[in-house]
């Protein structure tokens, strides 16, 4: 009994001492939660970055994939972790800014510690080669003329892709029928097989089919056009740059993580992304670097959460 007491005191005092030893950080392996399945886009980017991050931090970083619930499962679990900086989160924006409007979650952009954003890319809408439209404008006009006729595959109800599409459709007074699939791969399979009319998802999986002439991508959900998809119009070209909804990635810490440690990780990320191999990898994925740190990152999350909340409300998709 006495021994336990002694040990407890020792542990407690060790805990109390930690902030003073912040310069030691990190001195043991770090666990990185990725709220998406192994092998997906988020996972690939996280693991690729991880290689260089390990070197910069001087400690191994173990990736733990906790998939499900549109990313909410992993982030929920992460939000219960100790805030000592040895558990970090590598996520894309949807679980933080979209999912909390649709499901009960244990976290919000206010509680999690913002570290840094890393990269971003747009979503795209593509159709089969025989679709009667050759440009973004014609595409929207065709959809306008035939309300409820076309189906578009997307990443699911809580996903940012569907939201990005619905924001555009609402502005152009379009009704298309969303078909929620499990991810871009499944959407692509059903699009290529002709089971849905429109592919909605990230750019990378569909790129080879654009080259082959089996798909034509007519719209990207960023304000700017995309170099990889010359036929697609950006939203600025269509007169609605404010409708931009992109996919972006970030690293976050649990609530109450010490600022020095968050800074240390953000610095390491900033150095890690400088590696030319990583930048070449991002370019091949159609992603661009985008580093926003600390409170600025929180502000970005706040603005996006609000904007998405309003869109969801006007679409009648908000659950609470």
């Amino acid at each position: 009994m006495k021994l336990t007491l002694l040990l407890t005191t020792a542990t407690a005092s060790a805990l109390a001492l930690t902030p003073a030893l912040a310069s030691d950080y990190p001195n043991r392996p770090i666990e990185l939660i990725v709220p998406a399945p192994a092998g997906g886009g988020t996972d690939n980017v996280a693991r690729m970055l991880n290689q260089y991050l390990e070197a910069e931090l001087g400690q191994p970083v173990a990736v733990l994939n906790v998939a499900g619930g549109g990313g909410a499962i992993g982030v929920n679990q992460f939000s219960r972790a100790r805030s000592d900086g040895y558990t970090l989160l590598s996520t894309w924006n949807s679980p933080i800014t979209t999912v909390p409007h649709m499901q009960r979650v244990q976290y919000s952009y206010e509680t999690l510690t913002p570290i840094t954003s890393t990269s971003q890319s747009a979503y795209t809408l593509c159709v089969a080669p025989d679709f009667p439209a050759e440009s973004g404008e014609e595409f929207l006009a065709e959809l306008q003329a035939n309300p409820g006729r076309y189906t578009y595959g997307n990443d699911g109800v809580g996903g940012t892709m569907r939201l990005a599409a619905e924001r555009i459709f609402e502005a152009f007074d379009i009704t298309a029928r969303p078909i929620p699939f499990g991810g871009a791969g499944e959407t692509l399979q059903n699009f290529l097989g002709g089971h849905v009319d429109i592919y909605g998802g990230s750019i990378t999986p569909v790129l080879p089919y654009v080259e082959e002439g089996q798909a034509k991508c007519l719209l990207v959900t960023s304000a700017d056009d995309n170099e990889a998809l010359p036929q697609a119009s950006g939203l600025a070209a269509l007169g609605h740059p404010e409708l931009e909804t992109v996919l972006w990635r970030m690293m976050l810490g649990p609530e109450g993580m010490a600022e020095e440690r968050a800074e240390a990780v953000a610095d390491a990320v900033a150095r890690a992304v400088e590696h030319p191999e990583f930048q070449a990898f991002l370019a091949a994925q159609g992603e661009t670097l985008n580093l926003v740190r600390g409170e600025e990152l929180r502000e970005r999350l706040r603005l996006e959460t609000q904007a998405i909340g309003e869109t969801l409300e006007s679409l009648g998709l908000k659950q609470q």
Partner: protein
Amino acid sequence: MNYRDLFSGIAFLIIGASTVWMGKDFFADAAYVPIGAGALMGAFSLPLIWRGVKSILAARAMTDSTKASHTQAHRTQAHAIPALVDHPARFATTLGCCLVYYAAMPIVGFYTTSALFISLLAVLLGERRPAVVAGITLGFITLLYALFAVVLKRPLPVEFFFAT
């Protein structure tokens, strides 16, 4: 006398009914399968309940009457049914140790708790050779450590004496 069919039938009927009851509030097409599965479960539980009631009634009738041959047949059948729990003490010990193990693991750390759990449960289940218990426990924990911490680097609950 066998009440098992009756009771398990009733349990399934309750699960089925509550699934339907909860499922009817789900939105449109999200409700189809819960209601269908619940209703089917209720339907399939009825033959089980019926069989249970019949066997109980038959057993009642049997004890009243004096048809020896039938009683004989029924007795052998009753003997064939296995007990629900063979050895309640060991069953409960194992379960109890598991619960304590799971509760302690995140606080004390994975390797310490596992070592204590293995040796304690082994002793409680009747292994009385200290060398065997200690040897296998140590060997097994070393193996796990080598695999998870050294080779795979999987994060497991951190030992209390390492936590910062």
